[in-house]
């Protein structure tokens, strides 16, 4: 429990990080550092995206699996680390 907190705090402390969300397999945000509306929005949308991406990767090669996803946009970068039951979403604003 404490390690989790520590990890999250460390991530939050990195330069440019705007928010962190931990979402479970059903799309429910478990832990978040942002406001509720944005959290729910991010959680819902990204959840579907990750599932689609994962299924794509596995369709192409069943031995393969999705390890990480970066969505780079003009204003920021959304990074998603998927796992079997949970995903960790971090929104970062790159320094330059």
């Amino acid at each position, binding site marked *: 429990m404490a390690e989790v907190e520590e990890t999250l705090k*460390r991530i939050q402390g990195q330069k*440019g990080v705007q928010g962190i969300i931990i979402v*479970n397999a059903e799309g429910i945000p*478990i832990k978040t550092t942002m406001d509720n509306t944005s959290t729910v929005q991010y*959680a819902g949308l990204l959840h579907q995206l990750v599932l689609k991406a994962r299924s794509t990767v596995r369709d192409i090669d069943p031995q393969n699996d999705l390890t990480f996803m970066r969505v780079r946009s003009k204003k920021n*970068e959304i*990074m998603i680390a998927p796992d079997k039951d949970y995903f960790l979403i*971090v929104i970062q604003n*790159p320094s330059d």
Partner: protein
Amino acid sequence: MFQLFPLDKISTYSRPFYRPFSGSQSAFLPAFLRVTVHLFTGLSPGHSQPFYRPFSGSQSTFLPAFLRMEIVHVYTKLRSEFGRQCLFSDRPAELLVDVSPDPNLALQFIQKTRRDQAMQASRDMSEHQVNTERFESESRGINHLEGGWPKDINPQEMEQTIRFRKKVEKDEVYINSVLQLGSIMEHCIRQNNAVDIYREYFEDEDEVEENQEPPSAKTINVFRDPNELKRTVTDLSWRPDGARKLAAAYSCLEFQKSCRGSSLDSYIWDIENPNKPELTLKPASPLVCLDYNPKDPHTLVGGSYNGQIVYWDTRRGGTPVEVSSVEQSHRDLVYKILWLQSKTGTDAFSASTDGQVLWWDVRRLSEPTDQLVLDPCREGNLDRAFGAVSLEFEPTMPTKFMVGTEQGLVVSCNRKAKTPAEKMVCTYEGHHGPVYALQRNPFFPKNFLTVGDWTARIWSEDIKESSIMWTRYQMSYLSNACWSPVRPSVFFTVKMDGTLDIWDILFKQNDPTLSLKVCDDPLYSLCLQDNGRLLACGSQGGGATLLEVCSGLSTLQKNDKSLLAAMFERETKREKILEARQREIRLKERSRSEQSREEEVGPEVGDDSPHQLITWTEKDFFSLVEAEQRRRSEREGRGQQEKDVCEEREEKNETTSAK
């Protein structure tokens, strides 16, 4: 269908017959099957007679009419002979029954009219089309508002959700996965902070676009002379306003070959329609050259075989609007005619092998406005004049023009000279044969291209002794050439063996960049459209071939002009230096020979009489011949000595006799 009755059941008559099944037995079978055939063979002939027996009553009702005839064949056998072994023997076929058609029955029928009916032994198929009903679909998205909470938790209630979350947080799986994901995530975050992995590097470097594809040109169309007797396409001219029309002059240029019966017409072709010319031009004598007015795309002027100049307006059809009078025209065929740049846009000048260059105003073709006789002595003497074979005029230099002669000289002339003597400014010598084509480089007017004998030469106006660049001696005679209007370093030549050569002097100087065999007949004329892509060449067989040049050879490259300017300059400089050196040598020689002449006292100096000259040259010639023969025989002698001796003796005899 065979049913054999056991032998003991047979009565004395053992006979084969057709009989329907009786009563109950027959009920199981369809009518046509109710015939049994009983046949016994090999018995003594005895009575064997076929006979017809109509069926009686009840039995016959099961059968169709045609089967109700009983054909019975009777064999007889003596009882005593029963049980004997069958002795089979072959016997030839015997007609048992012959049922001939009954003509009376035909009266009950009417003959159908014969009809052709197509049949085939295949399944009948029919074609049907099926279309499903239009299925309308629309794209819609759903926005996920709230997570997939388990059933028992009400998402609205804060308490329940918080409790759920807390529960999850305590889960071990959760803790492990978060730790793991956290480390991956950190790595990426740090990476982002360190380097912008998506930045566009190498933006400034320009992509060097090299045209990798090899040069090519493809034939698009061939316009053939529609007449029976094919004449040479001697000149081609594109319509200047970019419209796709090509004018071609046809005439028979064979020396003293009478082309009786060949038509006098020349044609204007629309390049979209190679089958039929768009307009037929009907001069009084075949056209040797023609030219479209660059200012007015409807007017054309042409020079004909008998020396007359003809003027057409295509809006008025194929008959010439005006023809020059025979007395005032050229005395020989007009090889080249070109429009001049003038305020009225009606001036043209023509050149012919009679030695004259005449200027005309097309509104009044009865007499030329000006005349120049190409006399090398500048006296206007027609007898000594050079025959002109090609003309050159560049609109940017309206007072100067050049004439290519039959003798291989190019004469540069000034139109605005005060006296006729001064009109011919200078000459350039270089070719061994007539200069068939002459054109200034559209980008570098100081340099011009000439074609004659077996080479193409590029000249600079300043260097009069020789050309600055020339091609190798080709395998066949070059008949025409022109620069590309788009790329300054590209020019095209056509040869007598039917090949078109495209030269790019920035790329390769020794050989053509592309050599295409257009046809088997010699090619005589060549004309490029202003866009530099389409090119027409005319052959002896009357076919004008339209080719399209690849984009690499018809689009201006970045450094073309500067590179070519540098090349021309370099070559010009080289020639200048060579010229200067030559002059020096000559001066030295002259001074040396003058000195030696002063010292010597003798009859050698002075005039050699013609006789002495002749004998001297003869001696020289024969000594050379002998030397060469000796050398050759020595070479052969290394192989076969015996033969040699005889040969040498023979040669000696020959030379002595020749002397």
